[in-house]
């Protein structure tokens, strides 16, 4: 045994270097999270504790008043205000309701589509997958506007239904909650289909045969094997639809009517119509708190899935 070989030295150096590289790699996402989420959130949270003012920016106090002075003037007045006016909690409840119903509708539409895709011949699947993703190539705003053209009184849908004679007078769909549901289901359908498809795609076909062999009918095998084994895909898809739908603004404001109450719309009006930034920020902070619950649940589900597969 002589002096340590070059290889060993190299390995030592690589070890120390590797440690540092790992630390840097881990630090990068945290840095992004800090810069893009935590700092903006801190700013919003600070504004939610301020008072409305006729100034630029339209609230007081600001950092110009000195840090200590500013901090001492902050209070929870705006949050208390949110509980006093029933518009806000009604908007939250209505948003939750709309998000929940559209999530279930999306699941109802998306599951059969994902199932059909997973059962399609192997060579078709990439094309079908493409078709699901294709709408993303067009601006979201344009696609929602297109629905205005489809659903309005003189829109394509009404004209078509009148033409084939199912209805005598145009249906009022646009500017109702129905239009909002249609818009949300349409927009978020790919987010439901993709995780369910990926779960069904991995499903071993012999499991279904085994279930039939043991006495299940086709339908029973679907309930007892296919559904439970795509559970993780269903849960992921539901969260991916529910979370953005809850704070949705564009769809209710373009397709919904005056009766459609959603927190995203309220938020927009507080900011741009009332120019009440502090109350708007308070609305946003509460929305975030409401969203944290499903997000945490979603992450727990993902983690469990990873553990089950590991």
């Amino acid at each position, binding site marked *: 045994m002589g002096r340590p070989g070059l290889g060993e030295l190299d390995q030592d150096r690589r070890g120390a270097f590797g440690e540092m590289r790992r630390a840097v790699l881990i630090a990068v996402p945290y840095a992004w999270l800090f810069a893009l989420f935590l700092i903006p959130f801190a700013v919003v949270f600070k504004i939610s504790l301020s008072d409305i003012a006729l100034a630029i920016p339209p609230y007081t106090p600001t950092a110009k008043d000195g840090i200590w002075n500013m901090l001492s003037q902050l209070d929870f007045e705006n949050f208390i205000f949110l509980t006093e006016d029933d518009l806000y909690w009604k908007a939250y409840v209505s948003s939750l309701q709309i998000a929940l119903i559209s999530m279930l509708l999306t699941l109802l539409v998306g599951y059969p589509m994902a199932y059909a895709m997973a059962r399609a011949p192997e060579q078709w699947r990439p094309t079908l997958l493409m078709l699901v993703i294709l709408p993303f190539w067009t601006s979201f705003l344009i696609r929602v506007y297109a629905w205005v053209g489809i659903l309005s009184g003189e829109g394509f849908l009404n004209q078509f239904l009148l033409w084939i004679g199912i209805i005598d007078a145009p249906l009022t769909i646009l500017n109702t909650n129905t239009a909002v549901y249609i818009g949300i289901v349409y927009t978020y359908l790919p987010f439901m289909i993709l995780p369910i498809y990926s779960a069904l795609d991995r499903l071993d076909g*012999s*499991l279904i*045969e085994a279930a*039939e*062999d*043991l006495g299940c009918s086709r339908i029973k095998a679907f309930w007892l094997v296919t559904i439970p084994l795509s559970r993780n895909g269903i849960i992921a898809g539901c969260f991916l639809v529910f979370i953005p739908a809850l704070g949705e603004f564009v769809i209710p404001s373009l397709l919904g009517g005056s009766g459609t109450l959603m927190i995203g719309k309220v938020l927009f009006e507080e900011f741009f119509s009332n120019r009440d930034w502090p109350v708007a920020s308070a609305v946003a902070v509460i929305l975030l708190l409401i969203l944290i619950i499903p997000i945490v649940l979603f992450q727990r589900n993902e983690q469990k899935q990873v553990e089950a597969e590991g």
Partner: protein
Amino acid sequence: MAETVFAPWDDPNEKPLIRFRNVTKRFGDFIAIDDLTLDIFEREFFALLGPSGCGKTTMMRMLAGFENLTDGSIELAGQDIAGVPANKRAVNMMFQSYALFPHLSVWDNIAFGLRRESNDKAAIAARVEEMLKLTRLEKFARRKPHQISGGQRQRVALARSLAKAPKLLLLDEPLGALDAKLREATQFELMDIQEKTGTTFVIVTHDQEEAMTVASRVAVMDEGRVMQVATPERIYEAPNSVYVADFIGDVNILRGQAKPIENETYEVNWAAQQTPVVAASTRPFSDGQACHLAIRPEKVAIHRDKPEADNAVQGKVLDIAYLGNLSTYHVELPTGDIIKAQVANTRRISRRDFTWEDPVWVSWTKTAGVLLAK
């Protein structure tokens, strides 16, 4: 002490459990099963043996109800099962991949089939416990399939498919995923369980050793046809074709022309400058008919000097395959043919009699080989 030998196939009064009658299965242009007729009897451990693509898995899937026949009929206990869907057949299958339900515990996997036909919780629990005991899985009842080993998973799959006490159990390459040692132990366990439960087993395998070990009868298949159905001994000792002889174990084949010399004895002219070899055969051959003489290597002896034997041919040692317990000598004849002779290594290797390039004699008796037409 005359113990009756289990051989229902020799009893003309015995009714077969399964009857394949002129079964044909086509996938588009491809003929997977070609006009196949076959009987399988109750309590048999029947092996379908063949290379991949020979149609053995298709036959099993037709029995299970996952494939329809193109032509012919299959009877199970006297009843045509063509129209009976998989979930209504008294047939269960153990899948090659085991197909255990990953979201259910071992206990629930075994109970799965029982729950489909009964709501009697106590009876189901009793049956599941019985199955767990039979397959020695009591300790793992609450685990999920991914928390147990491959061998245990194999036993869960077996317990699950046996739980409903099927008339017929199909096993698709049941030991394929196990390592060699475990496979050997499991083969005996399978035979044991088959005997205890009295279920008819049909096993699909490409492993001839496995088929020979477990089966009461073996069907050797090739390209959708059954080449021979017989007990393992007969398949090995009396193959009916060169294909079967070659597929099962190791064999020397000498091609030549037969010439009857006396009752059930023939001379085989296998090479121009060589003395013809003598072989006994109950299968008749006409004078000059082309034939193949198949001789198992362990029935060929090797000597330094010319032995007193029915057949003796001189050659030289070309190669020696040392297998530990046995050695196989590859002896090259002057004609270029190679004869393999297998010898048990009863002495230490340093005391070996022959080595490479040694001139030797190989010999065999006239009844050692099988004379085959094709």
